[in-house]
């Protein structure tokens, strides 16, 4: 298990499906067999390229494309055939190739770092007028998942249709029982509305947005919830435990 205290998990509070960070993923299905060329963008900049081979003979139902790994380069935490990156191959020195069955799905995610990426994928033999797939505009059948950690009240907007919803992330409660985020909730994105427009979830719980219409999901913190008042500082710890900061690695 890879443990992390990646600052970005705690400093990037909002989510935007057009700018993927660690807490957001996009799932898209390429239903037409063929070779696709993908480009990872950060704003106007091209950060990395990859290829997707959509092959009827492939047994891969899911290809996981870690955009951070493509941008930053593979490292020890993502060796070849790592479960995090099913369907990937980088045997040669060219762009990494992901193989998936046309009835399967490609999952775009960011495993580390600040992210802020979107992808543009296009068939290698596409006509000039074929614009391909741009993750800034989620297509029908796409799924965007969001994990929200920071307690508070959020607004959800589909900036392509104007649909709105509200979301509350409750403050965690400490107890003897170990907290585990509940199962994710599902929200269907219709043309003018979200099927559920008032949501309440626990921190770390997922929200799965299922696209029925072109969508760009933007989640913004409107009112943070800082929980109960900070408790009184602990009494002096005596000589047994020196100041913790000097021991922190």
């Amino acid at each position, binding site marked *: 298990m890879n*443990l992390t205290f990646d600052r970005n998990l705690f400093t990037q509070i909002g989510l935007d499906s057009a700018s993927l960070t660690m807490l957001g993923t996009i799932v898209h299905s390429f239903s037409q067999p063929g070779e696709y060329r993908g480009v990872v963008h950060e704003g106007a900049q091209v950060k990395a390229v990859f290829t997707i081979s959509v092959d009827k003979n492939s047994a891969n139902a899911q290809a996981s494309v870690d955009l951070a790994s493509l941008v930053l380069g593979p490292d020890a935490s993502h060796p070849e055939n790592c479960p995090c990156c099913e369907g990937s191959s980088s045997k040669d020195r060219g762009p990494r190739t992901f193989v998936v069955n046309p009835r399967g799905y490609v999952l775009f995610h960011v495993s580390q770092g600040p992210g802020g990426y979107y992808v543009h994928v296009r068939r290698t033999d596409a006509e000039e007028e074929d614009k391909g797939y741009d993750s800034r505009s989620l297509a029908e059948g796409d799924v965007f998942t969001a994990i929200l950690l920071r307690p508070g009240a959020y607004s959800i907007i589909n900036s392509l249709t104007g649909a709105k919803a509200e979301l509350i992330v409750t403050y965690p409660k400490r107890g003897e029982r170990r*907290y585990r985020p509940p199962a994710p909730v599902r929200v269907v994105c219709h043309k003018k509305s979200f099927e559920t427009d008032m949501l309440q979830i626990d921190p770390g719980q997922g929200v799965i947005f299922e696209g029925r219409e072109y969508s760009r999901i933007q989640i913004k913190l409107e009112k943070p919830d800082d929980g109960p008042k900070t408790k009184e500082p602990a009494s002096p710890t005596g000589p047994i435990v020196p100041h913790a900061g000097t021991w922190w690695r």
Partner: protein
Amino acid sequence: MSHITIAASERAFEQIFTLVRDNFSFSKGPETGSFGPFSATYTVAGKLSGGTLDLHDDGTVEVKNLDIVWTQLKLKVCLDLPGCCVGGWCIIPDPWNGCLVGVPEICIGGPICIPLDLSGLVSEVNSIKAHLKPVYFIDPGRNPAWTDLEAEFNGKPNKWRIFLDPDLVSVDPIDVPASIGNLFENLVENAVEDLLPSWLPGWAKDIIMAALGFIIDIVKGILGIVDKVEDWISDLLGNRLDLLVFLETAIADYFAAQYPIYEFEDPYPILPASGGLFPVKIPIRDLKSTVNSKEMIVEANVGGA
């Protein structure tokens, strides 16, 4: 019958032992041991104090109740805080085998260290049983071409040294007071919270602490503490980090080879140099040393080998 016999009473022998004991010190570390889910790093230093001496007619010396004063005893226990995981759930279920597409899991947590400063603790050498061992010492700095007189003028004479050679050194387990065990339990939660990165916002700490649940049990589970914390600390220091063996070896090596209880030059000066005359010295051979219940006895013969 020997040409020379020197005797020192038990009281005089005790005074000699006190000098030798007070010259002993040890230090080690930082050393780290890895024990699966956690690691422990220690830095120790200490000295000896107290002790009672018994001379026996069988030629053995017994030291009892010798205290080990840990002038420095710092222990740092590091473990991977399990934290909590988000994600990992299924996005598109597969009716046939569970899940077609799932979100990667992100686990929030990391290594933390709990420092314990046990400096000032006193433990005990249960017993040292030893006999006297004479050793002939030739200074490694002595030029082989030198005569005994030249060696003396250059401050590198040969010597007879008498060591207290231990046959047995038995160090008691480090007795960690129950109060430290209790304090450790009381402080773990605060320590874990304090040891989270300082930049982590309060709400994020609360999520992690909520995910940890009852922190004492979590930490105890990771560290493998099944009974009293103080017993676990004692076992960790003494046995798993091998400090008892280190101490027994250090004490045995010190008494047996590093610091003699008594030494004298060979040839032995019986008249010092004066008035332009060379000193008068006699060679010592066949040196033997032993004890009985009343005194230490050193016997030797005069003359070359």
